[in-house]
């Protein structure tokens, strides 16, 4: 795909930290001698709260860490694991890099596409699954591998994937 424009997805107009998140943000800030180092942990806290990072979340992060909003936006979009669009309940990230590809990742991905009826970066209409191709997950010896959220699922084949999907509500 060579058209690069990513249009922003708006999300809620304002957001505020929960008490728990506020405490986590304070802890994160305390771990570094320079405040701006906390921008990545605080982005993770925001993403855990809301599942993705709408502009309101980025504004909140920029306030908490003391960075201009534009910089936080630039940082968040640099990293592939920060979701700037909503994702389904189960984020299916299939590794497609060489070792996994040699071990059948492409076939596995095609299977998932057919089964779920969505393609790369798309979410099923019921909001249950988002399917995504990702790069090497450091599971090359246990290929093919898929990360669901943060959970590793390795040595996969079609049957195992089907069984796994059943369990993911």
């Amino acid at each position, binding site marked *: 795909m*060579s*058209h*690069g*424009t*990513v*249009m*922003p997805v708006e999300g809620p107009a304002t957001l505020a930290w929960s008490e728990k998140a506020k405490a986590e943000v304070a802890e994160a800030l305390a771990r570094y001698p320079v405040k701006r180092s906390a921008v990545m942990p605080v982005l993770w806290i925001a993403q855990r709260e809301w599942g993705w990072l709408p*502009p309101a979340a*980025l504004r909140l992060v920029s306030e908490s860490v*003391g960075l*201009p*909003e*534009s*910089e*936080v*936006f*630039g940082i968040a*979009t*640099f990293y592939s694991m920060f979701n700037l669009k909503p994702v389904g309940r189960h984020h299916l990230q299939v590794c497609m890099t060489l070792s996994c590809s040699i071990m059948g990742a492409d076939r596995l991905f095609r299977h998932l596409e057919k089964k779920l009826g969505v393609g790369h970066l798309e979410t099923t209409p019921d909001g249950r699954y988002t399917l995504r191709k990702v790069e090497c997950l450091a599971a090359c010896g246990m290929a093919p591998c898929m990360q669901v959220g943060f959970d590793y699922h390795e040595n996969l084949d079609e049957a195992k994937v089907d069984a796994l999907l059943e369990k993911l509500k």
Partner: protein
Amino acid sequence: MAKVTVDGRTVEVPAGTLVTDAARAAEVHVPIFCSHQKLPPLGACRICVVEVGTPKLGPDRQPVIGADGTPEIAWMPKVQTGCTTTVSDGMHVRTVSETAVKARKGVMEFLLVNHPLDCPVCDEGGECQLQDLAFAFGHDFSRMDEAKRTFDSEDLGPIVKKEANRCIVCMRCVRYCDEVMGENALTAHQRGVYTEISSFDRQPLACEQCGNCIEVCPVGALTALPYRFKARPWDLRQHITICEWCPNGCSVRLGVRGMEILRARGTEFRGVNQEYLCARGRFGHEFVNAPDRLTAPLVRTGAALQPATHDEAVAYASARLRDIAATHGPEAIAFLGGEKLNIEEQYLLQKLARAVIGTPHVDARTRPAAAVAGDALLRATGGGRPALSFEALTDAQEVLVLFEDLQGEAPFAQANIVRGFRQRDLHVTVAHSRRVKLARPRFKGDWLGLKPGTELALTLGLTRAALELGVPDGMPAEAAKALSASVAAFTPEKTEAETGVASAAITAAARRMREASRKALLFGRGVLEHAAAPVLLQAIENLAWSVGAITAETSSVMAFGPHHDSAGALEMGLTPDHLPGFVAAGDPAARAAYEKVWGRALPGEGSSARAALAAAAEGKVRALWIFSDELLSSAPDRALVERALEKCELVIINEMFLTRTAARAHVVFPVAAFAEKEGSTVNSERRLQKSNRALSPRRGARADWEVLQSVAQALGADWRYRSAEDVFREIARVVPGFRGLSYASLLPQGVQLSGPALAPRLQPVAPVAPAASAAGEGLWLLSGGTLFADGSLSARSNTLAKLAGSARVHVSPAEASRLGVGAGDMVELAGPAGSARFAVEVDDSVPAGAVFVPSAGSELNRLGAPSLAGLRVQARKAGAAATVGA
């Protein structure tokens, strides 16, 4: 120093020089894109790759000499980016070896991989660095046969057009906006080949709209919407002149086609500003081409102003002037305004007034509420000593800004401070009632948020705190003692109680300034137009000495404006008490030299603008000649101006447009804009710079100096100036401080004026009782210049007018809720002289108990005088019954 050999040419350059700069010194062209003289080395674009080698050293650590008698060179295995490599002594550089050429051609080819072939539709074409360097250093064919990556194009607001397809990710725009402008409006998002420059969440840029991102973009990725598709650079004649918007004196390169200015740009390596321009400099030229420029002189016959020829107008004006002088004496004529004229014109203005007509009433400064001595500012800025330059400002460790919002009044000075903070070790302390840009947390400075009206108290408090640290360098011990005694009462605690600024902050600010070896003290209209200006100026002179910003030899004080040649007006004696060169008008011995040169006895001191207007309102002054001044809107006492204009039997006005003030005149001379005449001006660095003509004056308009000469000649004076340069030659002959100067000597960077260092006056200052209207109730009405709105001219520059919108009243969130208003609601402000309505803008930089209305376009003098400081108003939601005041 280091000896560096580039392609066989050896040059000696200072240690720490970058290879690209050493190459330039050796007159070898190494191409650059991401490199920029105001930004630290990045090494991203790779176009400047060269081969670098150093002499081989033998076991004895001496260079190994080869067979041909020259040192053997060990070449680095990989090419290096010249812009990130500092030279070492004996370094060799090859820029045209096979390796270097292949590497550079490779980079050039990569740059064109995704860059679209947009030249025919791209505004950058003809002045595009990528085009130029592709032509010089690239292939003449493309091997890239794949689909290119694309982006949507975007308008990032009303100024910036982004064609992201063209972007070569040099990051100059993002870095410049961060490090020089301190706005952080732009960011790179995504990564890799899909890196795209945009704003937060693709929102329209909410920034200073300076357009410098457009300027530094080496390709057509960022272009100016106001200029889009209007011309090709080869259609334009480009002339560099001095911008007329503020006293920074930036050099602006006007692009003219036919009789129209189409655009303005900065220019690398030219002027104090080089590539930098603010929104006004860049887009403010539009008024020059406004359709309602006056194209013929106007003379009042009966009730209406009628067009007349220049000769008719001159004849009428001179006859009337001769009449009035004969009947009521020359003192019945007063000359007001002139801060926007060139020094040549200013010189002739006061020469006409004093030496032809014989009146002493000359005052360019129509906005101050109180009369200020003509040399007060000179003293407060360490007069005579080498003046502070913008470079020194960027390099300062400590900067103290007193009561001035630099963003509106001196944007380039602000940018220097931002860059000093971002790239060097500059710390800024801003004393201002509003939390202006430089006082915002992101600049990690200190904000002394004083209560409005307490400027003098704070100054005295800072002085005392500074003197506590000991007698400063160069201050006579006696004076120090007297000064200390006079400020003894302003302890940090007392000052805190009066001003609301924490005592610890006061002592810290004073100490920082004292201890810094490189410092700067800045102030401007906030002081000059203050109700207590004369006292405040003296207090600032005292403070400057106390913190070491003025010493026996040096001055680190810079004062602004308000207009682009206000400094020139002071130099040329457009003040009632001084002749050109700060010669005291009231001193017969001092006057003698001028009397000799101009061939007649000269009058002594005259009245200030305020006093002259009062005299005109009473019928004692019967003729006023006003120069490019929207007096009705900008003078502190509007009612006084109304009466004066009503009463005067002769009002002559030099103007570009039929302004409200001009409409009251009996004679209106249409005059040339800054871009339409030659001359020289003095900026806030006391730098005298040559300003050039970019296009002929609008039909019917003449330079002010030509008008003055016509009238002078009609009055019998033997003036034979053929050009502005002729006038300058006379100035260089007769005015102290200008001896030996010529237009040629003003190239390339102008000349900073100085003179014999004035001895410190250091007069102790007694605290002034607050003005009558200031005591008691009401919200403080704060005002000042803002970036997009700066007087009547900005209203006639479409782009600026669009950016400014209509004047709004800025209220703090707390005040807004007390008034029961939100953004856009109408509020009525009522002052002693009248009332006015404004739409609300909620602004958290405005303190409680105050409101802020930009001075331009708001005609605040309808509410009362003085309008800049010391005025309290009542505010209520328009339509509501109750009034909210104290």
